[in-house]
């Protein structure tokens, strides 16, 4: 057991990467900053036993105070890994200082409702102890009486249960974590939908005048973050902000997971060291000569690879923000020259319109209209009218939903017509740069969209 507090958040001696345990499965890129971790069907065969986990990462730090944890998390610049990218220390502070008579609630969101994402399922299947460490630390710091893990994937559920059983058998006394099954559906992972489901309600977004940090599950101050965020917390609070930021010896330091999908030779979950460039990632994934990348997931923004210097930048929060990009849910969707990115975006928009919970009028009525307009633009059937309709409908939808769903769709649409203005211009004259069929490479497996059948 680590005795002194200062030692407990200093750099340790063992290996520390998030993916510890599959070092043998890795084939790091020549730069050493990008590692392929798993294909898109991560198997649970690599679950790390608790003993190996503790040997690698060390025990949980003891004697950690909220003040020290907040300072460390702040210095680490750790941001949420579920989509919004909010600084984790701010979230923790908001719950810690919430004025409430109710004991705080901690929720780790592993529902991975972005259908292309696999990183969270991979993490839960392969390294559940690290996520449980993070939940345990945060619940302990907050004095929470309840903690939940919200999970959709069945095998991940099994892996988490096995890990919790192991912890109980090994006599690790900690708050019991309740695993709650996340139902299908894109919006079931939205913050307020999770809170509602944990309180045994439907997994649908709800409106509140309060933030969940002050009034979440049954009115209790609630800290909800993505499962990867909790795993990162377990690393930052063990090894310290300096190590996480700058690394100890060699290049070993904090990493992040992402899911790479679409027109690449090796789709899958990748682990990045800070400084890794988009070019390195694409090379590692055998992307060949791609046309565009959708960065962040369905609510993300496009990078047109036809523009100069479009891949030669380090993928860290700050550099991405300077380019008006964000990691979002950690999904990178690659489109090649066979398909048209505008058609891809139209197909995604149609899929997302169908995923509306149907609770809020502007989302329920507006998204199908936005989708129809996108289909007109994508399929060159009255591009003029499509653009006109987008300009008319978007202001009626934006900021008027009870959750982020409609605004996320609008971000994708804006980015599409902005990044591919030249392509849209071509479509006006009935042409398109796509060399092959219009088969989407970025729709979720099994999803069917009319792909413009709405436009006659």
């Amino acid at each position, binding site marked *: 057991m680590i005795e002194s507090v200062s030692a407990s958040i200093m750099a340790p001696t063992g290996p520390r990467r998030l993916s510890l345990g599959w070092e043998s499965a890795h084939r790091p890129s020549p730069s050493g900053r990008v590692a392929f971790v798993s294909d898109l069907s991560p198997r649970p065969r690599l679950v790390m036993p608790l003993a190996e986990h503790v040997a690698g990462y060390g025990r949980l730090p003891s004697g950690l105070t909220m003040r020290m944890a907040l300072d460390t998390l702040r210095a680490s610049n750790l941001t949420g890994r579920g989509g919004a990218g909010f600084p984790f220390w701010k979230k923790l502070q908001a719950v810690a200082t919430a004025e409430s008579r109710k004991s705080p609630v901690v929720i780790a969101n592993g529902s991975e409702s972005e259908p292309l994402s696999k990183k969270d399922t991979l993490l839960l299947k392969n390294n559940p102890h690290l996520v449980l460490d993070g939940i345990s630390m945060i619940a302990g710091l907050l004095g929470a009486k309840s903690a939940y893990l919200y999970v959709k994937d069945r095998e991940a559920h099994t892996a988490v249960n096995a890990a919790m059983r192991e912890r109980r058998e090994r006599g690790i006394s900690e708050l019991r974590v309740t695993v709650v099954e996340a139902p299908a559906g894109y919006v079931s992972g939205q913050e307020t939908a999770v809170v509602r489901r944990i309180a045994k309600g439907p997994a*649908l*977004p*709800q*409106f509140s*005048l309060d933030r969940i940090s002050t009034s979440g599950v049954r009115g209790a101050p609630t800290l909800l973050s993505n499962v990867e965020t909790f795993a990162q917390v377990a690393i930052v609070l063990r090894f310290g902000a300096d190590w996480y930021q700058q690394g100890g010896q060699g290049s070993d330091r904090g990493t992040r997971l992402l899911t790479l999908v679409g027109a690449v030779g090796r789709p899958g979950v990748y682990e990045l060291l800070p400084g890794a460039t988009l070019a390195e990632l694409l090379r590692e994934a055998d992307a060949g000569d791609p046309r565009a990348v959708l960065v962040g997931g369905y609510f993300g923004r496009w990078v047109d690879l036809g523009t100069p210097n479009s891949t030669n930048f380090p993928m860290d929060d700050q550099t991405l923000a300077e380019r008006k990009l964000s990691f979002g849910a950690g999904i990178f969707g690659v489109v090649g020259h066979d398909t048209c990115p505008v058609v891809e975006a139209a197909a995604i928009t149609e899929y997302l319109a169908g995923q509306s*919970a149907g*609770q*809020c*009028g*502007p989302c329920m*009525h*507006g998204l199908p209209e936005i989708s129809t307009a996108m289909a007109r633009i994508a399929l060159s059937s009255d591009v003029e009218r499509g653009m006109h309709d987008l300009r008319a409908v978007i202001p*009626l939808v934006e900021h*008027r*939903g*009870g959750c982020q769903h409609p605004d996320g769709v609008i971000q994708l649409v804006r980015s599409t017509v902005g990044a591919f203005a030249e392509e849209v211009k071509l479509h006006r004259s009935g042409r398109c740069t796509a060399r092959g069929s219009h088969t989407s490479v970025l729709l979720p497996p099994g999803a069917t969209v009319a792909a413009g059948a709405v436009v006659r």
Partner: protein
Amino acid sequence: MRLVIDPTRCHGHGTCAQLLDEYIRLDKWHYPIVGKQKVSAGHADLLMRAAQLCPELAISIVDD
């Protein structure tokens, strides 16, 4: 005073817009768009009535 409408509850009945036409207009689907300005003290009774008469009880009154 301000009024805040819960968009997940609102079904676009339009009662609020009839009572508070200075502050609320309806979009093309008949859902309310609430203006930015605060509701004046003289309209407090109207605001209360709008909140009470909303068939979905979607209106909250916020004092700030």
